[in-house]
């Protein structure tokens, strides 16, 4: 029973990314939205927390914050709103780490 872990807070302001990462098990996926997308920037201290995990980021939230796709950690996938829906649909549950 796979879970999609949604993180919408900056990893430098809240601990939701840490907790979500700890709760990820095989088959789960993570989607970073809103201020959560800052975790996917390479060179940042938070980047190491998501390495090796199945992580997607919401493209429109990246663009709003001036983050180009070249700045992302390797292995991170950029999705649009339709991709967000696909992720929700392809996992059994959604856990929002508010």
């Amino acid at each position, binding site marked *: 029973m796979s879970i999609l872990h949604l993180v919408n807070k900056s990893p430098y302001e809240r601990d939701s990314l840490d907790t979500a990462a700890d709760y990820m098990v095989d088959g789960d996926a993570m989607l970073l939205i809103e*201020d959560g997308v800052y975790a996917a920037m390479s060179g940042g201290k938070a980047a190491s927390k998501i390495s090796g995990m199945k992580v997607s980021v919401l493209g429109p*939230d990246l663009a709003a914050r001036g983050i180009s796709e070249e700045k992302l950690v390797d292995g991170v996938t950029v999705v649009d709103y339709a991709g967000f829906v696909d992720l929700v649909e392809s996992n059994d549950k959604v856990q929002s780490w508010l």
Partner: protein
Amino acid sequence: MSETKKFMYVNRRAPYGTIYAWESLEVVLIGAAFEQDVSLAFIDDGVYQLVKGQDTAGVGMKNFSPTYAALGDYEVTKIYVEKESLEERGLTLDDLQHLVWEDEDDDWAEKDSIRLVSRAELAEVFSGQDVMFNF
């Protein structure tokens, strides 16, 4: 005749996720009309406010980032960016907007508004202020 005070606006939040960044900018612009000695500091997630290339078309929110470039015209010329906060986030000054002001006492020469400072240096700047506003 009123006495000029040193006002420091401290920005610690990322833009868009909360309303703090935008509200701070509004207050700074309103306050600028009162001819005080205004400084802005961007620390922690606040440094994200100045990242260039913001495009909010896809999220249906107002992109207020071009407004930072107008601060110089309001005689807001001291913008402190904390080095440690940039480094922790994998950012450099090149990732930020290039903010300038025109010095009327120097033949309107264009000068940089952003001052890259360490946490310790910024603490000294804070010590010298009369009023602090936090966002």
